[in-house]
């Protein structure tokens, strides 16, 4: 019995520390500036910005791990719901980012404008800013950490969110022009609508979460 409790406690702390390390490490990796050797406006610089986005997606997944640790520590907390909403928000934002960043460089203004909108909304969701689903995901993660009496971890998570502003500002400062095909444009429009609508009306996401977790 003691061994089982010890193993559970170990797992909880492993998840919490793993999530925190993943969050901090990914945010720091994303916040690192572009190497001096890389020229501004070059393909290498664009790749550096894209890798910042990828790191913040990993940080987003780490927030879900923190929520799972919170629900294991305090089963009454909203951790499971937080983890599912945060995972959903991160996957949606990642999909939007991948679709928007995926095109080849272009001077086509209408295509680049849609791609820029997609990248912008994806970043907004990853930063947990309204009106996106990411806002509700982050909010639920913080709430579940507070419910699990992990105030310090919630503070660390909030600091990680603030740190993610650095790569976001860099990525949004000079959005690369991307060529967007018709099918890609439809996909971007659908994903942007999904991220924003679920952000403005979060009940749909919460109902799906309740179905998935069996808590409804």
């Amino acid at each position, binding site marked *: 019995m003691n061994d089982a409790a010890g193993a559970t406690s170990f797992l909880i702390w492993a998840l919490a520390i793993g999530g925190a390390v993943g969050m901090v490490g990914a945010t720091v990796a994303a916040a690192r500036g572009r190497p001096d050797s890389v020229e501004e406006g070059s393909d290498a610089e664009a790749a550096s910005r894209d890798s910042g986005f990828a790191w913040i997606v990993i940080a987003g997944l780490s927030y879900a791990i923190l929520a799972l640790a919170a629900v294991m520590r305090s089963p009454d907390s909203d951790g499971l719901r937080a983890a599912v909403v945060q995972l959903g928000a991160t996957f949606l934002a990642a999909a939007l980012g991948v679709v928007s960043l995926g095109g080849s460089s272009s001077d086509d203004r209408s295509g680049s404008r849609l791609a820029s909108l997609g990248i912008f909304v994806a970043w907004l969701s990853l930063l947990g800013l309204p*009106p996106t689903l990411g806002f509700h995901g982050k*909010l*639920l993660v913080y709430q579940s950490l507070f419910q699990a009496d992990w105030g310090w971890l919630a503070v660390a998570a909030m600091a990680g969110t*603030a740190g993610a502003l650095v790569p976001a500002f860099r990525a949004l*400062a000079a959005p690369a022009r991307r060529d967007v095909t018709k099918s890609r444009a439809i996909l971007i429009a659908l994903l942007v609508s999904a991220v924003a609508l679920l952000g403005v009306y979060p009940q749909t996401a919460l109902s799906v979460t309740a179905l998935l977790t069996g808590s409804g």
Partner: protein
Amino acid sequence: MGLTQPDTVVLNWLLLLPFFAALCAELFPRLALHVHDEKEVEALRRGPFLLGALTALMGFGIALSLSPQALRGAPLTVDYWWTRDLYHLRFQADALSVAMCATLWVLGLVMHLYLAGLPAMSDVHHRAALLLAAQGCVAAACLSADLVLLFFLLELAVVCLWLLVRLDHQPAANGMLAAAHVGGLVFLGGVLLAWGRAGDTSLATLPFLLLAAEPSSLRPMAALVLLGLLPKLAAAPGHGWLPDAARGAPATALAPALLLPLAGGATLVRLLPGAFAVGLLPSLLPLALALGLFGLWAGAVRAWLAKGLLELAAWLTVSQAGLALIALGAGAAAERSPEMTRALVLHLPAAAAGLCCLWVGASAIRARLGTEVVHDLGDSLKTAPLAVIALLVGGLSCVGVPLLPGYQVQRLLFAALIGQERVWLAVAIAGADLLLLVALIDALRRIVAAGSSTARARWQSPWLSAGVALAVIMAIGISVGAPAMSDWSEVVSRSAISVSRNPLSVSP
């Protein structure tokens, strides 16, 4: 409450109007490009801003139509189903929120007229839409009766203003977003603590639920809320973004400079003396007082050293935020000093009116003469007389000169401080006022001095003049309506400042 009830429809319109208008401002000019030729499109250039001005006018009318009910102490509530079991879209129109909305719409009208009058500007429709969306978020935040919704709307307003300022100067916009978002996260920490302690986020029930909690457990949440609101109030030490915005994006800086402090101030009044019953937390008050004094003096000294009119306006805004914090700290410390609470409430519209005159006057001078550096602006009284008058009215109101809106605030503040035998604090405020007055007179003396101008006057749009004139009329209107404003501040402070009746005066 049924949706067919006329007042509820009115409240719905108040909430949705700006977002409708933002959509129209964004879409219609794009459609017009396909229908009209270039010359006609140029003639329609100011259309989006005039649509914004019309919306602001309608919003003002709607807010006024709600005021009789709100002043009777019978606030109108609307509770939408947003999330079934987490938090709700709760709105409540009471004396504070309705007056804040009315103030906001007049500020909106001034801002739209000012922007309509600026020389050629790219993305006009986009700017009008973003400004309208920010106005809508601030209006909804003033009407909000739920902690999470309040946080959502304040952050959304910051995002809209970030996008607006970003059109002119990215670093200044990023600085504003970073400061406001970090402050927002600190504020969220307080909200989550309150949520955990009370189990609910409704401002109507929160005071009663918190009443059972130990004051020591309330202290961190109130401190986090106070510290988190500093950047939005532009109060020291969270004020750095405002002078940067004034320097980097002078044409659009007035939008965040007017909207964010109003939203932050309304939230401060709503939460700290109201929902969180700051009177129960004496240990928090020295912090508010110290931050307020620091901000007041830092603002006054930097305003004295300012070389540009917008910089002067930015530092005067910082000093006014400091004054609000002093009223909060000194008022609640004195075991419910009614004058101090009324001074804090009255400070919101009075400071908004004074600062609106100051910002729009300085911005209009910059638009007319192409510079805002005081040394280059000699003889401005001849070229931009209305803007100079706006500067004078706004500046003098901020330092509490009689017959202007700020005077009523300072009168109540000094009366309460002398009543509390805190003469040293009254002297400190009077000293800062004196320094601000010297800074203002020095700046005005230079810009009206004959023959020292190096700036060449440009054509001035009548819309710009209309915006400046409206700001002056607003300030004078508040001064003329001082008795009504005083009654209103009494209603707000008596009904415990909020949707949440104060647990100090009303037991559950």
